[in-house]
Protein backbone atom coordinates (compact mmCIF):
# COMPACT_ATOMS: atom_id res chain seq x y z
CA UNK A 1 0.00 0.00 0.00
CA UNK A 2 1.31 3.41 -0.91
CA UNK A 3 0.95 5.72 2.06
CA UNK A 4 2.85 8.72 0.76
CA UNK A 5 2.97 9.59 -2.90
CA UNK A 6 3.34 12.63 -5.08
CA UNK A 7 -0.05 14.26 -5.61
CA UNK A 8 -1.22 13.93 -9.21
CA UNK A 9 -1.71 17.68 -9.25
CA UNK A 10 2.04 18.23 -9.00
CA UNK A 11 4.33 17.67 -11.98
CA UNK A 12 7.63 15.78 -11.66
CA UNK A 13 9.60 19.03 -11.69
CA UNK A 14 11.89 19.46 -8.72
CA UNK A 15 11.10 22.58 -6.68
CA UNK A 16 13.66 25.36 -6.97
CA UNK A 17 12.89 26.66 -3.48
CA UNK A 18 15.66 27.04 -0.89
CA UNK A 19 15.94 24.18 1.56
CA UNK A 20 13.60 24.59 4.49
CA UNK A 21 11.35 27.01 2.59
CA UNK A 22 7.66 26.30 3.14
CA UNK A 23 6.58 27.29 -0.39
CA UNK A 24 7.01 23.66 -1.45
CA UNK A 25 4.93 22.36 1.44
CA UNK A 26 2.09 24.74 0.63
CA UNK A 27 2.26 23.76 -3.06
CA UNK A 28 1.81 20.19 -1.94
CA UNK A 29 -1.19 21.06 0.22
CA UNK A 30 -2.90 22.81 -2.69
CA UNK A 31 -2.12 19.87 -4.98
CA UNK A 32 -3.52 17.36 -2.48
CA UNK A 33 -6.72 19.37 -2.27
CA UNK A 34 -7.04 19.49 -6.07
CA UNK A 35 -6.57 15.69 -6.09
CA UNK A 36 -9.07 15.05 -3.31
CA UNK A 37 -11.72 17.28 -4.84
CA UNK A 38 -10.94 15.79 -8.27
CA UNK A 39 -10.83 19.20 -9.90
CA UNK A 40 -7.36 19.24 -11.44
CA UNK A 41 -8.80 18.96 -14.95
CA UNK A 42 -10.96 22.02 -14.53
CA UNK A 43 -8.54 24.11 -12.51
CA UNK A 44 -6.63 27.14 -13.74
CA UNK A 45 -3.88 28.44 -11.45
CA UNK A 46 -2.41 31.91 -11.54
CA UNK A 47 1.27 32.24 -10.62
CA UNK A 48 2.46 35.52 -9.12
CA UNK A 49 5.71 37.40 -9.44
CA UNK A 50 7.78 36.34 -6.47
CA UNK A 51 9.65 33.21 -5.45
CA UNK A 52 6.63 31.16 -6.49
CA UNK A 53 6.55 32.54 -10.04
CA UNK A 54 7.54 29.08 -11.29
CA UNK A 55 4.40 27.61 -9.74
CA UNK A 56 3.33 27.20 -13.37
CA UNK A 57 5.97 24.50 -13.71
CA UNK A 58 4.85 22.64 -10.60
CA UNK A 59 1.08 22.47 -10.67
CA UNK A 60 -0.23 19.88 -13.06
CA UNK A 61 -3.16 21.99 -14.20
CA UNK A 62 -3.46 24.82 -16.72
CA UNK A 63 -1.45 27.78 -15.45
CA UNK A 64 -1.07 31.47 -16.22
CA UNK A 65 1.81 33.65 -15.07
CA UNK A 66 0.52 37.06 -14.05
CA UNK A 67 2.15 40.48 -13.82
CA UNK A 68 3.31 41.39 -10.28
CA UNK A 69 0.27 41.81 -8.04
CA UNK A 70 -2.33 41.43 -10.77
CA UNK A 71 -3.17 37.78 -10.19
CA UNK A 72 -6.67 38.45 -8.78
CA UNK A 73 -7.52 40.53 -11.88
CA UNK A 74 -6.17 37.80 -14.17
CA UNK A 75 -8.15 35.23 -12.17
CA UNK A 76 -11.25 37.40 -12.56
CA UNK A 77 -10.84 37.32 -16.34
CA UNK A 78 -10.51 33.53 -16.38
CA UNK A 79 -13.36 32.93 -13.97
CA UNK A 80 -15.79 35.22 -15.77
CA UNK A 81 -15.14 33.35 -19.00
CA UNK A 82 -15.32 29.91 -17.36
CA UNK A 83 -17.46 30.16 -14.21
CA UNK A 84 -17.43 26.37 -13.83
CA UNK A 85 -13.64 26.17 -13.64
CA UNK A 86 -11.83 26.31 -10.34
CA UNK A 87 -9.47 29.27 -10.35
CA UNK A 88 -6.81 29.97 -7.77
CA UNK A 89 -4.02 32.46 -7.30
CA UNK A 90 -0.88 31.79 -5.32
CA UNK A 91 0.71 35.04 -4.12
CA UNK A 92 3.36 36.39 -1.79
CA UNK A 93 2.94 39.34 0.53
CA UNK A 94 4.64 41.86 -1.74
CA UNK A 95 2.55 40.66 -4.65
CA UNK A 96 -0.76 40.63 -2.79
CA UNK A 97 -0.49 43.35 -0.17
CA UNK A 98 1.78 45.96 -1.79
CA UNK A 99 1.71 46.27 -5.57
CA UNK A 100 -1.48 44.23 -5.89
CA UNK A 101 -3.51 45.65 -3.01
CA UNK A 102 -6.13 47.23 -5.25
CA UNK A 103 -6.60 44.05 -7.30
CA UNK A 104 -6.87 41.99 -4.11
CA UNK A 105 -9.34 44.26 -2.33
CA UNK A 106 -11.58 44.70 -5.36
CA UNK A 107 -11.65 41.04 -6.33
CA UNK A 108 -12.69 40.39 -2.73
CA UNK A 109 -15.25 43.20 -2.78
CA UNK A 110 -16.80 41.85 -5.96
CA UNK A 111 -17.01 38.46 -4.34
CA UNK A 112 -15.09 36.87 -7.21
CA UNK A 113 -15.47 33.14 -6.93
CA UNK A 114 -11.76 32.46 -6.71
CA UNK A 115 -9.41 31.06 -4.10
CA UNK A 116 -6.39 33.06 -3.08
CA UNK A 117 -3.49 31.25 -1.43
CA UNK A 118 -1.53 34.00 0.25
CA UNK A 119 1.98 33.27 1.50
CA UNK A 120 2.90 35.73 4.22
CA UNK A 121 6.61 35.40 4.92
CA UNK A 122 7.10 39.01 6.03
CA UNK A 123 9.70 39.69 3.34
CA UNK A 124 10.37 39.93 -0.38
CA UNK A 125 12.05 36.62 -1.06
CA UNK A 126 12.68 36.71 -4.77
CA UNK A 127 14.36 40.10 -4.97
CA UNK A 128 16.67 39.34 -2.07
CA UNK A 129 15.10 40.20 1.25
CA UNK A 130 13.60 43.66 1.01
CA UNK A 131 10.89 44.96 3.33
CA UNK A 132 7.34 43.76 2.69
CA UNK A 133 4.04 45.33 3.77
CA UNK A 134 3.88 42.50 6.30
CA UNK A 135 7.43 42.96 7.64
CA UNK A 136 7.32 43.09 11.44
CA UNK A 137 7.97 46.26 13.44
CA UNK A 138 11.68 46.33 14.17
CA UNK A 139 12.44 43.61 11.62
CA UNK A 140 15.70 44.16 9.78
CA UNK A 141 15.53 43.69 6.02
CA UNK A 142 17.82 44.89 3.25
CA UNK A 143 15.69 48.01 2.77
CA UNK A 144 14.94 48.52 6.46
CA UNK A 145 18.50 48.04 7.71
CA UNK A 146 17.74 49.80 11.01
CA UNK A 147 14.59 47.79 11.53
CA UNK A 148 11.09 48.66 10.32
CA UNK A 149 9.99 51.83 12.09
CA UNK A 150 6.33 52.78 12.39
CA UNK A 151 7.05 56.47 11.80
CA UNK A 152 8.92 55.77 8.59
CA UNK A 153 7.47 52.66 6.99
CA UNK A 154 4.22 52.39 8.92
CA UNK A 155 2.96 49.22 10.55
CA UNK A 156 2.23 45.86 8.88
CA UNK A 157 -1.01 45.11 7.08
CA UNK A 158 -3.15 42.33 8.49
CA UNK A 159 -4.73 41.05 5.32
CA UNK A 160 -7.34 38.61 6.66
CA UNK A 161 -8.62 41.15 9.17
CA UNK A 162 -8.86 43.80 6.47
CA UNK A 163 -10.57 41.60 3.88
CA UNK A 164 -13.00 40.05 6.34
CA UNK A 165 -14.80 43.41 6.54
CA UNK A 166 -15.87 43.01 2.90
CA UNK A 167 -19.22 41.43 2.17
CA UNK A 168 -17.89 39.70 -0.96
CA UNK A 169 -15.58 37.53 1.13
CA UNK A 170 -17.01 34.09 1.83
CA UNK A 171 -14.05 32.61 3.63
CA UNK A 172 -10.91 34.07 5.15
CA UNK A 173 -8.64 32.05 7.36
CA UNK A 174 -5.08 32.55 8.53
CA UNK A 175 -3.07 29.40 9.05
CA UNK A 176 0.56 28.71 9.76
CA UNK A 177 3.10 26.40 8.19
CA UNK A 178 5.28 26.28 11.31
CA UNK A 179 4.48 22.76 12.53
CA UNK A 180 2.73 19.56 11.51
CA UNK A 181 -0.45 20.31 13.44
CA UNK A 182 -0.81 23.72 11.86
CA UNK A 183 0.09 22.41 8.42
CA UNK A 184 -2.75 19.89 8.74
CA UNK A 185 -5.08 22.74 9.67
CA UNK A 186 -3.76 24.70 6.70
CA UNK A 187 -4.78 21.93 4.35
CA UNK A 188 -8.26 21.83 5.83
CA UNK A 189 -8.59 25.56 5.30
CA UNK A 190 -7.40 25.31 1.70
CA UNK A 191 -9.87 22.51 1.05
CA UNK A 192 -12.70 24.48 2.54
CA UNK A 193 -11.79 27.51 0.45
CA UNK A 194 -11.94 25.46 -2.77
CA UNK A 195 -15.20 23.85 -1.69
CA UNK A 196 -16.72 27.26 -1.11
CA UNK A 197 -15.48 28.40 -4.49
CA UNK A 198 -17.03 25.42 -6.22
CA UNK A 199 -20.28 26.09 -4.37
CA UNK A 200 -20.03 29.69 -5.70
CA UNK A 201 -20.13 31.25 -2.25
CA UNK A 202 -17.74 34.10 -3.08
CA UNK A 203 -14.14 35.16 -2.57
CA UNK A 204 -11.99 32.82 -0.49
CA UNK A 205 -8.56 33.45 0.92
CA UNK A 206 -6.20 31.36 2.99
CA UNK A 207 -3.30 33.31 4.41
CA UNK A 208 -0.42 31.00 5.20
CA UNK A 209 2.20 32.30 7.60
CA UNK A 210 5.42 31.05 6.10
CA UNK A 211 9.17 31.48 6.29
CA UNK A 212 12.13 32.67 4.29
CA UNK A 213 15.17 31.15 6.00
CA UNK A 214 17.45 32.51 3.29
CA UNK A 215 16.54 36.16 3.65
CA UNK A 216 15.77 36.02 7.34
CA UNK A 217 19.34 34.78 7.78
CA UNK A 218 18.21 31.79 9.82
CA UNK A 219 18.41 28.03 9.65
CA UNK A 220 15.15 26.35 8.64
CA UNK A 221 14.52 25.28 12.25
CA UNK A 222 15.32 28.72 13.63
CA UNK A 223 13.05 30.26 11.03
CA UNK A 224 10.08 28.20 12.22
CA UNK A 225 10.81 29.22 15.78
CA UNK A 226 10.99 32.87 14.66
CA UNK A 227 7.57 32.48 13.06
CA UNK A 228 6.14 31.27 16.35
CA UNK A 229 7.69 33.98 18.49
CA UNK A 230 7.31 36.91 16.11
CA UNK A 231 4.81 36.39 13.32
CA UNK A 232 2.11 34.38 15.03
CA UNK A 233 1.49 36.80 17.92
CA UNK A 234 1.10 39.67 15.44
CA UNK A 235 -0.86 37.65 12.90
CA UNK A 236 -3.14 35.38 14.96
CA UNK A 237 -4.21 32.25 13.14
CA UNK A 238 -7.91 31.52 12.93
CA UNK A 239 -11.04 31.94 10.85
CA UNK A 240 -11.74 35.59 10.15
CA UNK A 241 -14.76 35.10 7.97
CA UNK A 242 -16.98 32.16 7.24
CA UNK A 243 -20.11 33.13 5.41
CA UNK A 244 -21.77 29.85 6.41
CA UNK A 245 -21.35 30.47 10.10
CA UNK A 246 -21.87 34.19 9.70
CA UNK A 247 -18.91 34.36 11.97
CA UNK A 248 -17.67 37.36 13.81
CA UNK A 249 -13.89 37.15 13.92
CA UNK A 250 -13.03 34.27 16.21
CA UNK A 251 -9.35 34.12 16.67
CA UNK A 252 -7.29 31.45 18.24
CA UNK A 253 -4.10 32.94 19.54
CA UNK A 254 -1.45 30.30 19.26
CA UNK A 255 1.40 32.52 20.35
Amino acid at each position, binding site marked *: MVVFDRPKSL*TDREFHYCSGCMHGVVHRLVAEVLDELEI*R*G*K*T*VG*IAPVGCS*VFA*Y*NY*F*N*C*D*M*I*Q*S*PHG*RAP*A*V*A*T*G*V*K*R*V*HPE*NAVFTYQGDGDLAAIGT*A*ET*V*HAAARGENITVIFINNAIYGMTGGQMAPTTMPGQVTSTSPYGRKAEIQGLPIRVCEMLSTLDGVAYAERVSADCVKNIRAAKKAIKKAFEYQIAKKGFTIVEVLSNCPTNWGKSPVESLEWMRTNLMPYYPIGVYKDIELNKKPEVENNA
Partner: protein
Amino acid sequence: MSEMVLMKGNEAMSEAAIKCGCRYYFGYPITPQNEIAEYMAARMPQAGGFSLQAESEIAAINMVLGASAAGARVFTSSSSPGISLKTEGISYIAGSDLPCVIANVQRGGPGLGGIQPAQSDYHQATKAMGHGDMRLIVLAPNSVQEIAEHTVLAFDLADLYRTPVMILTDGALGQMMEPVDFGKLKINKPPEKTWAAAGHSDKRPPNIINSLYLDPKDLEAAVLERYKNKYNIIDEKEVRYEEFDTEDADIVIVSYGIVSRIAKVAVNMLKDKGVKAGYFRPVTLSPFPSGRLGEIAETAKRFLVSELNMGQMTDDVRLAAGCKKPVDFFGRTGGIITTPEEIYNAAAKVLEE
Protein backbone atom coordinates in the same frame (compact mmCIF):
# COMPACT_ATOMS: atom_id res chain seq x y z
CA MET B 1 -28.65 43.10 -46.05
CA SER B 2 -28.24 46.70 -45.02
CA GLU B 3 -28.39 47.36 -41.28
CA MET B 4 -27.96 51.12 -41.38
CA VAL B 5 -28.09 53.04 -38.11
CA LEU B 6 -26.93 56.43 -36.91
CA MET B 7 -24.36 56.01 -34.16
CA LYS B 8 -21.42 57.53 -32.36
CA GLY B 9 -18.04 56.09 -33.24
CA ASN B 10 -17.65 54.72 -29.72
CA GLU B 11 -21.00 52.95 -29.93
CA ALA B 12 -20.31 51.56 -33.40
CA MET B 13 -17.05 50.10 -32.10
CA SER B 14 -18.85 48.43 -29.20
CA GLU B 15 -21.62 47.00 -31.38
CA ALA B 16 -19.14 45.73 -33.96
CA ALA B 17 -17.19 43.98 -31.19
CA ILE B 18 -20.35 42.19 -30.08
CA LYS B 19 -21.28 41.38 -33.69
CA CYS B 20 -17.97 39.60 -34.23
CA GLY B 21 -18.30 37.43 -31.18
CA CYS B 22 -16.61 39.40 -28.42
CA ARG B 23 -18.49 38.60 -25.22
CA TYR B 24 -16.18 40.10 -22.62
CA TYR B 25 -15.42 43.73 -21.96
CA PHE B 26 -13.39 45.18 -19.08
CA GLY B 27 -12.96 48.93 -18.70
CA TYR B 28 -12.67 51.93 -16.47
CA PRO B 29 -14.41 55.28 -17.03
CA ILE B 30 -12.52 58.08 -18.78
CA THR B 31 -13.66 60.77 -21.20
CA PRO B 32 -14.00 60.69 -24.21
CA GLN B 33 -14.60 56.93 -24.38
CA ASN B 34 -17.28 56.41 -21.73
CA GLU B 35 -19.87 55.51 -24.36
CA ILE B 36 -18.02 52.24 -24.92
CA ALA B 37 -18.24 51.09 -21.30
CA GLU B 38 -21.84 52.30 -21.08
CA TYR B 39 -22.85 50.57 -24.31
CA MET B 40 -21.17 47.35 -23.21
CA ALA B 41 -22.81 47.49 -19.78
CA ALA B 42 -26.20 47.70 -21.47
CA ARG B 43 -25.67 45.38 -24.43
CA MET B 44 -23.41 42.60 -23.17
CA PRO B 45 -26.01 41.01 -20.88
CA GLN B 46 -28.51 41.04 -23.77
CA ALA B 47 -25.93 39.33 -25.97
CA GLY B 48 -25.17 36.69 -23.34
CA GLY B 49 -21.86 38.35 -22.59
CA PHE B 50 -20.22 40.04 -19.65
CA SER B 51 -19.07 43.58 -19.04
CA LEU B 52 -17.27 44.77 -15.93
CA GLN B 53 -16.13 48.12 -14.62
CA ALA B 54 -12.76 47.30 -13.10
CA GLU B 55 -11.11 49.19 -10.26
CA SER B 56 -8.50 50.66 -12.62
CA GLU B 57 -7.15 50.38 -16.13
CA ILE B 58 -4.41 48.17 -14.68
CA ALA B 59 -6.98 45.73 -13.36
CA ALA B 60 -9.00 45.94 -16.58
CA ILE B 61 -6.08 45.00 -18.83
CA ASN B 62 -5.17 42.12 -16.52
CA MET B 63 -8.75 40.86 -16.62
CA VAL B 64 -8.33 41.01 -20.40
CA LEU B 65 -5.14 38.97 -20.01
CA GLY B 66 -7.01 36.34 -17.98
CA ALA B 67 -10.01 36.19 -20.30
CA SER B 68 -7.79 35.98 -23.36
CA ALA B 69 -5.64 33.29 -21.76
CA ALA B 70 -8.86 31.42 -21.07
CA GLY B 71 -9.66 31.50 -24.79
CA ALA B 72 -12.18 34.34 -25.12
CA ARG B 73 -12.45 37.21 -27.60
CA VAL B 74 -11.99 40.13 -25.24
CA PHE B 75 -11.96 43.89 -25.52
CA THR B 76 -10.94 46.89 -23.44
CA SER B 77 -10.93 50.59 -24.15
CA SER B 78 -9.63 53.75 -22.58
CA SER B 79 -8.27 57.17 -23.40
CA SER B 80 -4.70 58.43 -23.18
CA PRO B 81 -3.99 58.56 -19.39
CA GLY B 82 -5.71 55.20 -18.94
CA ILE B 83 -3.76 53.67 -21.81
CA SER B 84 -0.54 54.62 -20.02
CA LEU B 85 -1.71 52.48 -17.11
CA LYS B 86 -2.42 49.57 -19.41
CA THR B 87 1.07 49.42 -20.84
CA GLU B 88 2.34 46.94 -18.25
CA GLY B 89 -0.44 44.49 -19.03
CA ILE B 90 -0.12 45.00 -22.78
CA SER B 91 3.55 44.05 -22.59
CA TYR B 92 2.68 40.85 -20.69
CA ILE B 93 -0.07 40.09 -23.21
CA ALA B 94 2.38 40.54 -26.09
CA GLY B 95 5.02 38.49 -24.25
CA SER B 96 2.51 35.71 -23.61
CA ASP B 97 1.35 35.69 -27.26
CA LEU B 98 -2.24 36.42 -26.35
CA PRO B 99 -4.82 38.08 -28.60
CA CYS B 100 -6.94 41.03 -27.51
CA VAL B 101 -8.28 44.31 -28.81
CA ILE B 102 -7.58 47.63 -27.11
CA ALA B 103 -9.11 50.94 -28.17
CA ASN B 104 -7.46 54.26 -27.40
CA VAL B 105 -9.90 57.13 -27.96
CA GLN B 106 -7.19 59.74 -27.65
CA ARG B 107 -7.37 63.04 -25.82
CA GLY B 108 -4.78 65.78 -25.39
CA GLY B 109 -1.77 65.30 -23.12
CA PRO B 110 0.67 65.01 -21.45
CA GLY B 111 -0.53 64.47 -17.90
CA LEU B 112 -4.21 64.90 -17.35
CA GLY B 113 -4.05 67.08 -20.45
CA GLY B 114 -7.54 67.76 -21.74
CA ILE B 115 -10.56 65.91 -22.99
CA GLN B 116 -10.64 67.18 -26.55
CA PRO B 117 -9.51 65.12 -29.57
CA ALA B 118 -5.79 64.58 -30.12
CA GLN B 119 -3.37 62.20 -31.81
CA SER B 120 -0.55 62.71 -29.37
CA ASP B 121 -0.28 59.04 -28.43
CA TYR B 122 1.10 58.11 -31.88
CA HIS B 123 4.58 57.43 -30.55
CA GLN B 124 3.24 55.44 -27.61
CA ALA B 125 0.94 53.36 -29.81
CA THR B 126 3.44 52.61 -32.54
CA LYS B 127 6.73 52.47 -30.65
CA ALA B 128 6.28 52.13 -26.91
CA MET B 129 3.09 50.32 -25.98
CA GLY B 130 4.97 48.45 -23.25
CA HIS B 131 8.45 47.44 -22.12
CA GLY B 132 10.54 44.98 -24.06
CA ASP B 133 11.01 44.04 -27.71
CA MET B 134 7.37 44.00 -28.68
CA ARG B 135 4.89 45.56 -31.05
CA LEU B 136 1.20 45.90 -31.62
CA ILE B 137 -0.86 46.15 -34.75
CA VAL B 138 -2.30 49.68 -34.75
CA LEU B 139 -5.35 50.54 -36.88
CA ALA B 140 -6.40 54.14 -37.49
CA PRO B 141 -9.96 54.36 -38.84
CA ASN B 142 -11.32 57.70 -40.07
CA SER B 143 -15.12 57.28 -40.05
CA VAL B 144 -17.76 55.64 -37.94
CA GLN B 145 -18.30 52.99 -40.63
CA GLU B 146 -14.60 52.25 -40.70
CA ILE B 147 -14.45 52.10 -36.90
CA ALA B 148 -16.96 49.26 -37.09
CA GLU B 149 -15.04 47.51 -39.88
CA HIS B 150 -11.69 47.95 -38.15
CA THR B 151 -13.10 46.52 -34.94
CA VAL B 152 -13.94 43.29 -36.74
CA LEU B 153 -10.56 43.35 -38.48
CA ALA B 154 -8.83 43.95 -35.16
CA PHE B 155 -10.34 40.83 -33.59
CA ASP B 156 -9.48 38.75 -36.65
CA LEU B 157 -5.87 39.97 -36.75
CA ALA B 158 -5.50 39.53 -32.99
CA ASP B 159 -6.62 35.90 -33.22
CA LEU B 160 -4.69 35.17 -36.40
CA TYR B 161 -1.36 36.43 -35.04
CA ARG B 162 -2.03 36.00 -31.30
CA THR B 163 -1.14 39.62 -30.68
CA PRO B 164 -2.76 42.64 -29.07
CA VAL B 165 -4.29 44.98 -31.66
CA MET B 166 -4.97 48.64 -30.95
CA ILE B 167 -7.71 50.69 -32.57
CA LEU B 168 -6.45 54.26 -32.36
CA THR B 169 -9.21 56.85 -32.62
CA ASP B 170 -9.73 60.18 -30.90
CA GLY B 171 -12.39 62.17 -29.12
CA ALA B 172 -13.84 63.45 -32.39
CA LEU B 173 -14.24 60.07 -34.09
CA GLY B 174 -15.48 58.55 -30.85
CA GLN B 175 -18.13 61.16 -30.22
CA MET B 176 -19.40 62.05 -33.68
CA MET B 177 -22.48 60.41 -35.15
CA GLU B 178 -22.54 59.01 -38.66
CA PRO B 179 -24.53 56.35 -40.45
CA VAL B 180 -23.01 52.92 -40.10
CA ASP B 181 -24.06 49.79 -41.98
CA PHE B 182 -23.41 46.69 -39.88
CA GLY B 183 -24.66 44.58 -42.78
CA LYS B 184 -21.34 45.32 -44.50
CA LEU B 185 -19.28 43.67 -41.78
CA LYS B 186 -17.63 40.40 -42.76
CA ILE B 187 -17.81 38.22 -39.68
CA ASN B 188 -15.36 35.33 -39.41
CA LYS B 189 -15.41 32.58 -36.85
CA PRO B 190 -12.50 32.82 -34.43
CA PRO B 191 -9.92 30.04 -34.79
CA GLU B 192 -9.91 27.23 -32.24
CA LYS B 193 -7.67 28.10 -29.31
CA THR B 194 -6.04 24.84 -28.36
CA TRP B 195 -3.41 26.77 -26.38
CA ALA B 196 -5.91 28.32 -23.96
CA ALA B 197 -5.70 27.77 -20.20
CA ALA B 198 -9.23 26.69 -19.45
CA GLY B 199 -8.77 23.32 -17.76
CA HIS B 200 -7.22 20.30 -19.45
CA SER B 201 -9.91 17.83 -18.35
CA ASP B 202 -7.11 15.26 -18.08
CA LYS B 203 -7.10 15.05 -21.88
CA ARG B 204 -3.85 16.88 -22.63
CA PRO B 205 -0.78 18.17 -20.79
CA PRO B 206 -1.27 21.48 -18.97
CA ASN B 207 -1.27 24.65 -21.06
CA ILE B 208 0.99 27.31 -19.59
CA ILE B 209 0.58 30.97 -20.49
CA ASN B 210 3.83 32.67 -19.63
CA SER B 211 6.20 35.49 -20.54
CA LEU B 212 9.10 34.56 -18.23
CA TYR B 213 12.36 33.10 -19.59
CA LEU B 214 15.09 33.41 -16.98
CA ASP B 215 17.75 31.99 -19.28
CA PRO B 216 18.76 34.78 -21.69
CA LYS B 217 19.26 32.23 -24.46
CA ASP B 218 15.65 31.13 -24.14
CA LEU B 219 14.37 34.69 -23.97
CA GLU B 220 16.34 35.72 -27.04
CA ALA B 221 15.05 32.68 -28.89
CA ALA B 222 11.45 33.53 -27.95
CA VAL B 223 11.84 37.12 -29.10
CA LEU B 224 13.53 36.12 -32.36
CA GLU B 225 10.80 33.61 -33.01
CA ARG B 226 8.14 36.26 -32.39
CA TYR B 227 9.80 38.65 -34.83
CA LYS B 228 10.30 35.97 -37.46
CA ASN B 229 6.91 34.33 -37.34
CA LYS B 230 4.75 37.22 -36.29
CA TYR B 231 6.01 40.76 -36.69
CA ASN B 232 7.85 40.16 -39.96
CA ILE B 233 4.82 38.44 -41.46
CA ILE B 234 2.59 41.24 -40.23
CA ASP B 235 4.96 43.72 -41.92
CA GLU B 236 4.69 41.76 -45.12
CA LYS B 237 0.97 41.08 -45.20
CA GLU B 238 -0.95 43.56 -43.12
CA VAL B 239 0.15 46.99 -44.32
CA ARG B 240 -2.90 49.04 -45.27
CA TYR B 241 -3.10 52.54 -46.73
CA GLU B 242 -5.20 54.75 -48.94
CA GLU B 243 -3.96 57.21 -51.55
CA PHE B 244 -4.84 59.23 -54.60
CA ASP B 245 -2.91 61.38 -57.08
CA THR B 246 0.41 60.72 -55.35
CA GLU B 247 2.40 59.98 -58.54
CA ASP B 248 4.34 63.05 -59.70
CA ALA B 249 2.64 65.16 -57.06
CA ASP B 250 4.11 68.54 -56.18
CA ILE B 251 3.10 67.81 -52.64
CA VAL B 252 1.65 64.73 -50.90
CA ILE B 253 -0.26 65.38 -47.72
CA VAL B 254 0.15 62.49 -45.27
CA SER B 255 -2.33 62.14 -42.45
CA TYR B 256 -4.39 59.49 -40.64
CA GLY B 257 -7.56 59.19 -38.59
CA ILE B 258 -9.76 62.24 -38.24
CA VAL B 259 -7.14 64.53 -39.84
CA SER B 260 -7.21 62.53 -43.07
CA ARG B 261 -10.75 63.78 -43.68
CA ILE B 262 -9.67 67.38 -43.19
CA ALA B 263 -6.57 66.82 -45.30
CA LYS B 264 -8.70 65.47 -48.13
CA VAL B 265 -10.54 68.80 -48.27
CA ALA B 266 -7.23 70.66 -48.24
CA VAL B 267 -5.89 68.49 -51.09
CA ASN B 268 -8.94 69.34 -53.19
CA MET B 269 -8.54 73.04 -52.37
CA LEU B 270 -4.95 72.84 -53.61
CA LYS B 271 -6.10 71.06 -56.79
CA ASP B 272 -8.66 73.81 -57.39
CA LYS B 273 -5.73 76.25 -57.38
CA GLY B 274 -3.94 74.14 -59.95
CA VAL B 275 -1.45 72.49 -57.55
CA LYS B 276 -0.66 68.83 -58.26
CA ALA B 277 -1.54 67.68 -54.76
CA GLY B 278 -1.71 64.07 -53.58
CA TYR B 279 -3.28 62.35 -50.60
CA PHE B 280 -1.76 59.55 -48.57
CA ARG B 281 -3.29 57.96 -45.50
CA PRO B 282 -1.69 55.18 -43.47
CA VAL B 283 -4.57 52.96 -42.37
CA THR B 284 -2.26 50.76 -40.33
CA LEU B 285 0.10 52.93 -38.29
CA SER B 286 1.88 49.75 -37.29
CA PRO B 287 2.89 48.15 -39.59
CA PHE B 288 3.66 51.50 -41.20
CA PRO B 289 3.33 51.75 -45.01
CA SER B 290 6.99 52.70 -45.39
CA GLY B 291 7.42 50.70 -48.58
CA ARG B 292 4.70 52.53 -50.49
CA LEU B 293 5.77 55.93 -49.18
CA GLY B 294 9.30 55.15 -50.35
CA GLU B 295 7.98 54.45 -53.85
CA ILE B 296 5.98 57.66 -53.84
CA ALA B 297 9.11 59.55 -52.80
CA GLU B 298 10.65 58.56 -56.15
CA THR B 299 8.24 60.74 -58.12
CA ALA B 300 6.54 63.12 -55.70
CA LYS B 301 8.37 66.38 -54.95
CA ARG B 302 7.64 66.77 -51.27
CA PHE B 303 5.51 65.67 -48.34
CA LEU B 304 3.50 67.54 -45.74
CA VAL B 305 2.54 65.56 -42.65
CA SER B 306 -0.46 66.74 -40.70
CA GLU B 307 -1.52 65.41 -37.30
CA LEU B 308 -3.12 66.51 -34.05
CA ASN B 309 0.24 66.49 -32.26
CA MET B 310 3.70 68.01 -32.58
CA GLY B 311 4.69 65.89 -35.55
CA GLN B 312 5.11 62.42 -34.14
CA MET B 313 4.60 60.61 -37.48
CA THR B 314 6.95 62.95 -39.34
CA ASP B 315 10.05 60.90 -38.57
CA ASP B 316 8.39 57.75 -39.89
CA VAL B 317 7.55 59.53 -43.14
CA ARG B 318 11.12 60.92 -43.37
CA LEU B 319 12.57 57.46 -42.86
CA ALA B 320 10.21 56.04 -45.46
CA ALA B 321 11.06 58.80 -47.93
CA GLY B 322 14.72 57.98 -47.33
CA CYS B 323 15.65 61.68 -47.15
CA LYS B 324 15.04 61.83 -50.91
CA LYS B 325 12.40 64.51 -50.60
CA PRO B 326 11.62 67.18 -48.03
CA VAL B 327 9.08 66.31 -45.37
CA ASP B 328 7.35 69.19 -43.58
CA PHE B 329 4.87 69.18 -40.79
CA PHE B 330 1.81 71.12 -39.82
CA GLY B 331 -0.39 70.22 -36.89
CA ARG B 332 -2.35 71.47 -33.94
CA THR B 333 -2.17 69.95 -30.50
CA GLY B 334 -3.75 70.06 -27.07
CA GLY B 335 -7.22 69.19 -28.34
CA ILE B 336 -7.52 71.71 -31.15
CA ILE B 337 -8.66 70.30 -34.49
CA THR B 338 -6.92 71.71 -37.50
CA THR B 339 -9.00 73.22 -40.34
CA PRO B 340 -8.67 72.50 -44.07
CA GLU B 341 -7.61 76.12 -44.58
CA GLU B 342 -4.74 75.73 -42.12
CA ILE B 343 -3.43 72.65 -43.92
CA TYR B 344 -3.94 74.37 -47.29
CA ASN B 345 -1.99 77.43 -46.07
CA ALA B 346 0.80 75.27 -44.63
CA ALA B 347 1.06 73.47 -47.99
CA ALA B 348 0.98 76.72 -49.96
CA LYS B 349 3.74 78.12 -47.75
CA VAL B 350 6.15 75.21 -48.20
CA LEU B 351 5.43 75.17 -51.94
CA GLU B 352 6.53 78.81 -52.16
CA GLU B 353 9.93 78.04 -50.58
